[in-house]
């Protein structure tokens, strides 16, 4: 068994040495294909992450008819904090609202002179837990909110949220569609490259079958070869991704992508990196197998 495995492995290596051009072509095709897919994956993941940050600013503002009495304030705040999905609650009194307004007006603050400080309504600014920062979550909270306090008006960026939802759904759809398409194209290209390498060696396959080699004997070295090529291709694509990523970060190019300053671009996690290399190995083996079926007829 060990002797056989050694023989198969040596034959796979020898084959690769004997056909360096074909071997590099297969490796490079796999590296480029895998890098393309992984880059695409990273783009989608980063856009999603960026989008998720925007939702971090989502909060519900409940405007009140009348400001609550000072002694009720603590109880009301506590009640609001009890609602599932609420992360924090901040009370903004009419005076505080006016101060903010004044601050925002800046040089034009003089416009507010002579206006009653209690003109603006009191409000609760309710921060949400991440999993509630979407349409359905907010609707659940709003429904409970109205039972706790008499609300005059609610603001939570309804229109924006709808648009955002459409955008995320669109992103996921396009991501899945293009990703699937890329994957299919990759499989096709890799299988054809391997087929080409086998075509060049059809004499060898024919003679092997002629001298009584079993299918297993014929296939294993080619599958091993596919696996080795896939492994090297996967590692190369990882190297390429890593280098490009480091370059983007080190050159401060992430500012170029219009991302916030404190936003860290995501790279593949260790598991995803392992999966990428594994995908290369699987791609190589499957590519070899599918093409072998065409060339080896016993």
């Amino acid at each position, binding site marked *: 068994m060990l002797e056989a495995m050694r023989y198969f492995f040596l034959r796979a290596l020898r084959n690769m040495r004997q056909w360096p051009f074909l071997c590099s072509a297969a490796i490079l095709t796999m590296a480029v294909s895998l890098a393309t897919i992984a880059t695409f994956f990273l783009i989608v993941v980063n856009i999603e992450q960026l989008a998720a940050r925007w939702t971090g600013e989502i909060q519900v503002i409940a405007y009140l008819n009348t400001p609550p009495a000072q002694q009720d304030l603590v109880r009301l705040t506590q009640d609001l904090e009890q609602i599932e999905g609420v992360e924090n609650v901040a009370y903004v009194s009419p005076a505080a609202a006016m101060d903010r307004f004044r601050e925002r007006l800046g040089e034009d603050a003089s416009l507010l002179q002579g206006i009653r400080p209690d003109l603006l309504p009191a409000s609760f600014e309710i921060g949400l837990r991440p999993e509630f920062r979407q349409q359905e979550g907010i609707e659940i909270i709003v429904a409970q909110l109205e039972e706790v306090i008499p609300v005059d008006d609610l603001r939570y960026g309804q229109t924006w949220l709808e648009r955002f939802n459409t955008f995320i759904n669109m992103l996921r759809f396009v991501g899945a569609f293009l990703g699937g398409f890329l994957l299919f194209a990759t499989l096709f290209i890799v299988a054809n490259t391997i087929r080409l390498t086998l075509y060049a060696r059809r004499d*060898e396959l024919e003679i092997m079958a002629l*001298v009584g080699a079993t299918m297993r004997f014929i296939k294993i070295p080619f599958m091993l070869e596919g696996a080795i090529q896939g492994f090297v291709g996967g590692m190369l694509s990882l190297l390429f991704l890593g280098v490009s990523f480091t370059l983007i970060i080190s050159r401060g190019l992430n500012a170029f992508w219009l991302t916030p300053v404190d936003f860290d671009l995501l790279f593949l996690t260790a598991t995803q990196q392992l999966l990428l290399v594994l995908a290369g190995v699987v791609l190589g083996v499957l590519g070899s197998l599918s093409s072998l079926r065409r060339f080896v007829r016993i």
Partner: protein
Amino acid sequence: MDMIQLYNVSKRYSRDSIAVKDLSVKIDKGEFVYVTGASGAGKTTFLRMLYVAERPTRGQILVDGQNVTRIRSHQIPYLRRKIGVVFQDFKLLQSRTVYENVAFALEAQGKKRFEVSKKVYQALKEVGLEHRLQRKPLELSGGEQQRIAIARALVVDPLILLADEPSGNLDQEVTMDIMNLFKRANARGTTVLLATHDYSLHQRFPRRVLTLDQGKLVGDQRPLEMETAEQ
């Protein structure tokens, strides 16, 4: 004992192209048989059906007592290990050395390394090429290449040796060398089937001759009959 038996075997490639028609023949163990006929007479198809590179459209074929007509794919390699095949175009791996080409047949059967090297050396010695172990086929003459192909076919000690126009590309002197190799293999007990359209061969080495014409067996002459015919 019969080594090869064919019963009413026909092979059609398409509706109007019949390669072998209603062929029935028996070949004994240890026989040396020529298969002759013009190009397109069905010689190659006949041989290809024996090592199951083709399957007959009709009829039954038995090789060493095994019915190969309905043999399953996974059993074919084991049948082929009993059969050595030699071609007109040698079918050697040009990128491999002489040694590797011959060893290939043994490695394919999963033989151990020490056994492989011993047998390869013996087989190459038998064909007189033991001093060319590390050469590549293209560095050798046509006759030498054919001798490597014969060594590859014989290294596994086959029960049957099939040769399809083995001397087609070779001159007379080399052809004689190669015929001697076949005769020696035959003397050791290997059944030899040699397809050729070179009639001079069986005049020089008289043996049983099967003659095909347009896929049909039109003659089956044994040496005695041939001698009688000559008289």
